[in-house]
């Protein structure tokens, strides 16, 4: 089993009613629950919006993430999978696609 990271980008629930938002969250909980039962889930963090971005030799500081708002990373999971294909398959269960969410699946580098 290798470690993979799911990076969650975008996924805007602002047009959903409170009831629907709660239902949407429940889908996430069920997804995580399933991965935990299968011993795939390792960790996860949600990121605050905003923040600072530093660039260039002058270390120019700007407000907020560099990317456009729909591509901002909202959080990540670390999960276990046999290979990239299997990790990608796990990522298919993410409930955010209907909300134009994007999941980036990346392998965590490991030194042998």
């Amino acid at each position, binding site marked *: 089993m290798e470690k993979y990271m799911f990076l*969650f980008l975008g*996924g805007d*629930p*602002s047009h959903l*009613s*409170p*009831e*629907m*938002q*709660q239902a*949407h*969250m*429940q889908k*996430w*909980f*069920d997804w*995580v*629950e399933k991965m*935990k039962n299968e011993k795939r*889930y390792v960790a*996860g*963090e*949600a990121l605050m*919006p905003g923040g600072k971005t530093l660039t260039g030799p002058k270390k120019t500081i700007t407000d907020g993430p560099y990317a456009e708002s729909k591509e901002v990373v*909202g*959080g*990540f*999971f670390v999960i276990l999978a046999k290979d990239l294909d299997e990790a990608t398959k796990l990522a298919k269960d993410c*409930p955010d696609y209907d909300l134009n969410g994007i999941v980036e699946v990346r392998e965590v580098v490991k030194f042998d």
Partner: protein
Amino acid sequence: MHDNQVNQLIGHLFRHEAGKMAAVLTRLLGFQSLDLAEDIVQDTLLKATSTWKIKGIPENPSAWLYTVAKRKAIDAIRRHKLQAQHYESIHEALRSEWTLSPALNSLFLQDEIEDSQLRMMFACCHPSIPYESQIALTLKTLCGLSIQEIANSFLTSQEVIVKRLYRAREKIRDERISLEAPLPAAMSGRLDAVLHTLYLLFNEGYNSSHPDQLIRHDLCEEAIRLCILLTRNAFTDRAATRALLALLCFQASREDARLNNDGSIVLLRDQDRSKWNAALIERGKYFLERSADDGGISVYHIEAAIAGCHARANAFDQTDWKLISELYAILSEMKPGPIVSLNLAIATGYSETPTAGLDALRKIRGLEDHYLYHAAMGDFHARNGNEPEAQRCYDKAVQLTASHAEKNLLAMKQTDLLSAASQ
């Protein structure tokens, strides 16, 4: 926090918290700033969604929401230089940065939240707002339903609901309706208006021909929830409030038995009484017994007593029709109208004879175009063995209802009648 708990939020938590926060924030910012209050609520829930979906549910979800809402409210007050004049006792506190936060904290205490919800209820159900708008505004602000959801539950378009809400907002502005608690002298009249709106809200859910049972159920549940809230406050916990709550509990207790899986209606006579919700019936009895305290008898008392008669009967044959017809007779004095007369006639038909029921039905004017009237006529003719006349009445009833469930029910009666006649 995904590790140590079952990740399942309490049903409708977001919806109910949305209503609570909207009430508190509107009390703080004033009714003119209802939009701002709703924006803060929306932002708060969005923040929760984006965080909780990944991190799991915090230990105290409601407290988490309130903390975020408070912070956002403080930001809004600073940004808009708002004077929170609409809540006298913290008006002073809000002038100073030092006292801002504690003042807000006190508003988010359980008792104060309920107080804000009550004020909001009285404002939404203000008698000068047309009742359709009252219901729409109540569902939107107090129950956290979206415009789409309200439109769905009334089988109408979003535009219609937007218009109803607009009319409500217009009245609020023109009549300068605020979230002040009504003065004790005006309390009883205003409470009547609130109770009436809850009664209508419940009936919308209970009697609607909406294909989606869940939506109907939600409206009934919200009406009961708000009515319970009224019984928890010394000023609004009146005899009529308890009687209404008893009525709603009795009616709701039959909800699971009233409809078949395909959505068709099951008559009281044919309902599986084991499906009646015993807990709700007990609750209904409890509140009805305690509804005699401050004297006055309301229509809700009588209607609850009637519903209670049905709830107490273990079988249709054991129904105390004599008592029910007496109660309908009282009700028709208090709230005269053809529908009450129709119910009185039906009860008479059961407590006396079908012929007595038919005689009473024939005296009613104004229901010639109502399917229930003809269906009731059909029933008594059938019980008298007058099959052709019964069929004719049922035919008429079928023509007069648009509801599929009702049409199916009538068709079933006609088939039963035919097979009974041919035996």
